[in-house]
């Protein structure tokens, strides 16, 4: 133990934040194929079966694939960031304690949570972007409108943050021994009540279900993307989507951050 390393001055918190972010990027980069499989497989099969197979067999009407595609982008953006954040967080807090090295870095605890959210959102944005060429590949074409971009981009961003918020809440509330139960109880309903497979206004004929879906914030991501990509289909107007998403985000982040602090500091 000859080389006495000189003590290090406390670095700026921004630098620490970037170092932690770099760790996450490094790990994801090292397992990029796994990451792709993890995030793409589910929306890919939904797209393939509902958009391609059922359409080819004549069980869905022409144009359904166009209606489905924005919904699947919404699903990808929300679910990817939720999974990115929630699963590892439950394990790290409850079992491996891997997060401790980052909690003991000279950075505020809130920033550790913020890094998790940012990184989850980044992964989700990448996954959502990748879904577009996959959509073209599976369906032949996707409903794309450059003029819809000013709505598309913020909705996708909000969707990925929404998923991160959900992930933060679940990841800090769920105990490792409950992980399977809670995730199937949350994940499946979220998947099917988020209007990714059907436009919300068309549910008027199924009023009770329409009310339920209105309570799922993912609905507003699906509807916002429909507004951006296929405005001809009846949809919830973007400003309602933005308001609902921002409101959900504020609530989820508040609960999630509180949960994170509670897990990080006794």
């Amino acid at each position: 133990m000859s080389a006495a390393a000189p003590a290090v001055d406390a670095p700026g918190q921004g630098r620490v934040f970037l170092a932690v972010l770099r760790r996450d990027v490094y790990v994801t980069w090292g397992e990029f194929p796994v990451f792709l499989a993890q995030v793409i497989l589910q929306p890919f099969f939904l797209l393939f079966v509902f958009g391609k197979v059922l359409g080819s067999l004549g069980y869905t009407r022409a144009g359904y694939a166009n209606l489905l595609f924005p919904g699947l982008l919404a699903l990808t953006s929300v679910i990817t960031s939720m999974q990115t954040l929630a699963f590892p967080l439950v394990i790290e807090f409850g079992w491996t304690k891997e997060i401790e090295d980052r909690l003991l870095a000279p950075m505020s605890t809130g920033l550790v949570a913020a890094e998790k959210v940012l990184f989850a959102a980044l992964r989700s944005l990448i996954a959502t972007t990748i879904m577009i060429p996959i959509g073209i590949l599976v369906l032949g074409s996707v409903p794309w409108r450059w003029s819809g971009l000013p709505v598309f981009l913020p909705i996708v961003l909000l969707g990925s943050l929404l998923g991160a918020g959900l992930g933060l809440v679940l990841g800090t509330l769920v105990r490792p021994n409950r992980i399977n139960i809670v995730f199937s109880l949350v994940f499946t309903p979220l998947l099917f009540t988020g209007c990714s497979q059907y436009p919300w206004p068309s549910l008027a004929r199924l009023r009770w279900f329409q009310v339920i879906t209105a309570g799922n914030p993912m609905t507003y991501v699906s509807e916002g993307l429909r507004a951006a990509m296929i405005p001809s289909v009846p949809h919830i107007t973007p400003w309602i989507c933005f308001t609902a998403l921002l409101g959900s985000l504020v609530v989820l982040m508040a609960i999630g951050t509180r949960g994170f602090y509670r897990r990080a500091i006794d």
Partner: protein
Amino acid sequence: MASAAPAAVSVRALVKRYPKSSVNAVDEVSFEVRPGEVFGLLGPNGAGKTTTVGVLTTRVRPTSGSAEVAGVDVVRDPVRARSFLAVIPQRSNLDRALSIRNNLIFHAAYHGVPAQERGRRADTLLEQFGLGDRASQKPDLFSGGQAQRVMVARALMHAPRVLFLDEPSTGLDPAARLFLWERLAELKERGVTLVLTTHDMDEAAALADRVGIMDHGKLLALDTPEALMRSVPGGTTLELTTHLADGQEADAVVAALGRLAEVERVERVDPVSANGASARGSEAGPGSAERRSRELCVRLYVSGDAPLLVAPAAATLAAQGLTLAAVKLGIPSLEDVFIDLTGRALR
């Protein structure tokens, strides 16, 4: 203790009560650790050691009182405090997604060690800890002792002023424990302050300059291991066995031994239990009982060094025409200190 240098660790009237608990996990604890000192917190599970260290390492918010590490208030400025401390937990918390070397390198990055410096430090430390050939492996397959070595190396990457170790020897095999103790001794020589929690008396006695004994959230005693052991009333004893001649009075012998310097008190003890043989009388035959009746066993409570008293005691017996047949030294351990303080055994 008028030391000019500020304390490495300072805890004042620290109280921690967890929500929904009716008692304080840490109850008005105060102590200071000097720079370069090895400080041990000894106590059973649930004594409040880990909570105390949790406050010092910014992971537990105290209910009241104050705590400082390297002069930084850990409650008011936890971010700065973290750059001066490192924690080695009981169980591995290594980053399983990263290789051993990258565990070290990213840890250094989190602590702002310049990029060009990280690799050099990591390689040096991995060599010192005998991990050079495993640098590229992930920690999943490491044993507890190996993972702990990695964690110590990782902790040293940002050259902390104070290193906190939670039950460092728990679960280690003897070789790994020895390796750890040697590394810790080297760290001490380098001037790193070490604070360790342990319920292992041997570990506390072997490593710590001073030991704080905790139980039920309170700090019961705080001193060097030697002073603590000396403090046990009647702790140091010398037991002597001899065989009385027919008609010889035991009281005269006891009185003579009691006049020796540094002997505080003499008492006769039952030869059977004193000799450490079976305490069950049923095992002894009638013949041996008769012989034992002439056996005299006395316990001397000694204020000084008991071994030095063996020769004078033998001389005293010889003056009475007796031969010293058996000697047993009773040097108190930290365990005895604990029993003396709490009335029960540590484990």
